[in-house]
């Protein structure tokens, strides 16, 4: 099976600091990959490279056969992105935000209105749909951000700490929405620090450390505790190696 996402010797440097070093990663259609790693390990950089918002310093990256960032424009319609930042306009209402992004994704007007109403209801914001985003709590903004990412029915979801700011109910709702998307054969890459959640939801665990891939295995058989133990073992091995 041809991989949907393929990174070969992917490198990203900011000046003399390497955020990613010769990373090789392939992701198949329908996989749910949990990207784990300490702060600064390269998770967000990898996701940013995948969106085409950042250029690799070296190496190649393809998504669905499109070379990124050269052909990123064509690929973007397939991407839904949720970040720890809301990516919304605070001076517009929730509905106006979604209408704007529907236009930017060239969704037909009538079906866009239906989809906006359905998504606002799905994320529990129907009653606040005509309120300005600046009046929303952080958790509500994150819910709206999820609706924005799903608006155009993307094939690939790139999630950078998507549970940030969500309360228990919000986090559970996001998990359910993501599980539905995964059941619908969407491919998901999720950077997170929540090991338990990663073990429960993802089909594959990838751990990054200092810009390199240090662990890659199916998530089957992992629970939160086992994953935490595995994560600690990998971290300790790396510490020992760097001390030598």
């Amino acid at each position: 099976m041809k991989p949907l996402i393929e990174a070969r010797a992917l490198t990203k440097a900011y000046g003399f600091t390497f955020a990613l070093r010769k990373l090789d990663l392939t992701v198949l259609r329908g996989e749910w990959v949990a990207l784990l790693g300490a702060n600064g390990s390269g998770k967000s950089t990898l996701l940013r490279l995948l969106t085409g918002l950042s250029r690799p310093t070296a190496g190649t990256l393809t998504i669905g056969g499109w070379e990124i960032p050269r052909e990123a424009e064509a690929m973007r319609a397939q991407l839904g992105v949720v970040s720890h930042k809301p990516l919304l306009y605070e001076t517009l209402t929730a509905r106006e935000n979604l209408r704007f992004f529907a236009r930017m994704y060239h969704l037909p007007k009538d079906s866009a209105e239906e989809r906006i109403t359905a998504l606002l209801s799905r994320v529990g914001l129907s009653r606040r749909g005509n309120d300005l985003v600046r009046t929303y709590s952080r958790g509500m903004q994150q819910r709206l951000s999820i609706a924005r990412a799903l608006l155009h029915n993307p094939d690939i979801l790139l999630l950078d700490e998507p549970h940030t700011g969500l309360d228990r109910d919000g986090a559970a709702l996001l998990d359910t929405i993501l599980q539905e998307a995964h059941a619908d054969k969407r491919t998901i890459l999720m950077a997170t620090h929540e090991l338990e959640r990663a073990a429960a939801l993802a089909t594959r665990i990838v751990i990054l450390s200092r810009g390199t891939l240090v662990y890659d295995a199916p998530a089957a058989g992992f629970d939160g505790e086992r994953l935490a133990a595995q994560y600690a073992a990998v971290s300790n091995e790396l510490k020992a190696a760097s001390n030598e």
Partner: protein
Amino acid sequence: MKTPFFKAVIAIVRKDMQAELRSRELLSSMGMFALLSILIFSFALQLDIVARQEVVGGVLWVTVVFASILGLNRSMATEREGSSFDALLLAPVDRAAVFFGKLGGNFIFTLTVGVLLLPLMSLLYNIVLLNGYLLATLTLGTLGFSITGTLLATMTVQTRARESLLPILMLPIALPVLLASVNASSGILRAAPLGDWFAWLQILGAVDVIYLALCYLLFGYVIEE
């Protein structure tokens, strides 16, 4: 599927209008600054009619330029708040559509302030500024500032010293626009023969076209980190 170019441009302009109609942050700050500037100039420059005809063009452009800088900074800062600019760049639209969309909004806001200044300045300086040629100069000059300003504000908004950096970068680059605008305006206000100042209007048009082409080509590079 890629979003059609003009659909994306119109969506961005419409979004900026919608946000501004609600918050009135941009037009109120630009308008208040412009009003205060022309009031201060009118008190400071107690001139006779001939001297006034000479300097009013300069006063108009100094006011428009600084009001536009104020607006440009705010317009791009709005995009950076909540990282909404990233969301804009994630859409399947041509980068140039993002540039033209932002340019459209900035141009409309600055031109609105400039056009509102004309009757006010006519009253304060006792000179008729409501003139077709002056309106054309104002439109072309404002377009020139908005073109360079949109590109440079996109760059400077990513820096900590954005408020001071934008005028420092913009004024030297927009100098040909300013020079042509002031000379054309002064000629029009002095009621000089067409041949004396029309070349400045042509130069202004040419500079706008050159800057538009350059900024269109450079925008893609500017928005990359």
